[in-house]
């Protein structure tokens, strides 16, 4: 039976850990209590021990990757047969959450949070949260089915208390959250809490892409750098269906169309309108569609379908001179691309002479349940090739 090895929680304040080294290779025999990997926490380097005896059958998180606690980092097969479907009368044996949806875990523990969202929380955890004025949406559940338990609330409390408290300064202004901000707060919290994020960055030389933009402009065609990035992303995604996908429990949903969501900053918050079927649009059509949808967003005239069905998100903070940033996944999507500004930097040519270069840093955040570092790296390589080459951006779809 395959047993999960997860990123352990080695301290109250630990949220994530980095796998530094695997001591065992796939196929190796491991003994219960034997160290199988070394991880780095915010405070120390510690060993991860196997908790069952068996064979290491899969390494999920590669060396160097940083993942949230609870993320599955490997699988050990304990050599026992997979359990048969639970017979109807086996009500005495408690169900094992890893194999079947646990009725006990699901039973009656969900309570309605004030926002109208169902939060899976144990009664004592809820009571503690109420006593300490904690918003349960901020607490990550580590129990069966993601249930928030007493320990989770205590951990949250410990963490909160370790942070210097905001001075109760006079004149604090209390601003109610806008609807958009409420949604963002909730969705981003859920995303960070449930999807194991990892991040891969690449530098792209944009000289040819900028030249392309200028020549199109000379011909009366308004195309932004962002439009070029959208087009390049569409082309690159075609070869990497896992990044145009959703994690759905025991399976992945790979989408037939590429519907790019574009992050648009408004005064009242962030919104991500969607351009549908990008794979069937030419660069000009894509640019026009982007312009239209962004306009509608700014005017507050988005239609319901403008917010539906996004399969991949592009977030561009280049306009603010930002060099590089990491985005949070836009659920239920498996990946998001964050791009900074195009910056002029000295570079070396093939003869080691210093030349000017136009660099853009692109960072993909991805769901580790869906994909892994190497695949994202290959996707970024592809994106880089397309943009640096320039060729193909104007080709008919």
């Amino acid at each position: 039976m395959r047993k999960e090895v997860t990123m352990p929680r080695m301290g109250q304040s630990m949220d994530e850990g980095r796998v530094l080294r695997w001591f065992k290779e796939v196929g190796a025999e491991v003994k219960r209590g034997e160290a199988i990997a070394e991880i780095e926490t915010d405070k120390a380097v510690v060993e991860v021990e196997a908790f069952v005896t068996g064979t290491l059958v899969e390494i999920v998180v590669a060396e160097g990757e940083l993942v949230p606690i609870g993320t599955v980092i490997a699988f050990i097969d304990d050599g026992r047969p997979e359990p048969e479907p639970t017979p109807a009368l086996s009500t005495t044996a408690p169900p094992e959450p890893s194999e079947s949806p646990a009725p006990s875990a699901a039973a009656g523990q969900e309570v309605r949070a004030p926002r109208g969202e169902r939060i899976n929380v144990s009664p004592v955890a809820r009571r503690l949260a109420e006593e300490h004025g904690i918003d349960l949406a901020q607490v990550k559940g580590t129990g069966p089915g993601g249930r928030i338990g007493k320990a989770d609330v205590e951990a949250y409390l410990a963490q909160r208390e370790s942070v210097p408290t905001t001075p109760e300064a006079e004149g604090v202004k209390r601003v109610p959250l806008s609807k958009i901000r409420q949604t963002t707060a909730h969705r981003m919290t859920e995303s960070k809490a449930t999807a194991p994020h990892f991040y891969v960055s690449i530098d792209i030389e944009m000289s040819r892409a900028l030249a392309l933009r200028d020549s199109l402009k000379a011909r009366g065609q308004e195309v932004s750098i962002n439009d070029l990035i959208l087009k390049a992303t569409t082309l690159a995604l075609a070869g990497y269906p896992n990044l145009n996908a959703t994690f759905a429990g025991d399976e992945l949903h790979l989408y037939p169309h590429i519907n790019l969501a574009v992050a648009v900053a408004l005064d009242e918050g962030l919104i991500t309108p969607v351009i549908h079927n990008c794979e069937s649009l030419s660069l000009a059509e894509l640019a026009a569609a982007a312009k239209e949808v962004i306009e509608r967003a700014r005017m507050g005239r988005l239609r319901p379908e403008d917010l539906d069905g996004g399969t991949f998100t592009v977030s561009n903070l280049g306009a603010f001179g930002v060099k590089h940033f990491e985005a949070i996944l836009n659920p239920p999507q498996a990946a998001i691309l964050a791009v900074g500004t195009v910056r002029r930097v000295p570079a070396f040519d093939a003869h080691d002479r210093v030349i000017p270069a136009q660099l853009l840093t692109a960072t993909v955040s991805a769901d580790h349940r869906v994909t892994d570092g190497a695949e994202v790296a290959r996707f970024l390589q592809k994106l880089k090739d397309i943009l640096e080459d320039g060729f193909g951006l104007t080709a008919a779809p």
Partner: protein
Amino acid sequence: MTTREIMYREAIRDAQREEMLRDPTVFLIGEDLRDPWGGTYKATQNLSTEFGNERVLNTPICEETIIGASLGAALTGLRPVAELMYFDFVMRSMDAVVNQVAKVRYMSGGQVKVPLVIRTQGGGGRSSAAQHGNSLEAWICHVPGLFVAMPSTPYDAKGLLKTAIRMDDPVFFIEHKLLYMTKGPVPDEEYTIPFGVADVKRKGDDVTIVATSRMVLFALEAAAELEKEGISAEVIDPRTLVPLDEATILESVHKTNRLVVVNEGVERCGWAAEVAALVQKKGFGDLDAPIERVCTRNVPLPFQPDLENYVLPSVADIVRAAKYTLGKVE
């Protein structure tokens, strides 16, 4: 206080003997109680020799009349201790137990006392099959008007039975066929144990295990297993199911936030459900995990030992349930 190790059945026997010496109105009534047989599980051994056949009255095989006649005697100045050989046979006396013994005080508007103890033994684990291994305590607890005791150790058995015999209300006293030969320390000095007071058989911090009768021994074994994995289990024996010491259970769950209820009756509509209902109602804010029940599966008790072990609760079942409440199931 000096103590000696005696068997559970000796504790039962000694309690009856001491109370017969103390009070001439106490007498025993049931099937096959007399020496040299001395009771099918030897819980009345030597008593007919000491007190005579009048005070240790062998009856025909007529459970309803054993209980109905005990009631008649209890209503007219005596303190009968009736033995029903098997819990399974209690069904033959159910009208007397449920409609007569339990209700006569109430139906008469409180005119009478009913100083009557009904002893029986239940439980599986000995290939007794479906008609000699029932654990029907839930049925009895369901009847208003009875008190229900279900001790797990010789000490508790003796102290509770002595109390029961002195009480003016009817007591249903449930023993277990596989506890009779178990041993434990019992003081030489006289003592009694009050009803409605649970005993914490083992202290712990991580999970509360409430268990009855032989399941207390299983729960203690399970607690020892759990300790090896760093889990500290508290084991509570309520000792009397009616009245139930709710406070001790709720205090424990307040501390551990987790509860496993172990009872040998079948799970459906069983006693464990009653405890679960109690704790979810009065201790809801203390729970950190759903309450687990470990009970006999919802089938008749089979004869063959492997089949029987499969349906009865086991130490491993209790360990697994406790770990499940802690989110630590392998």
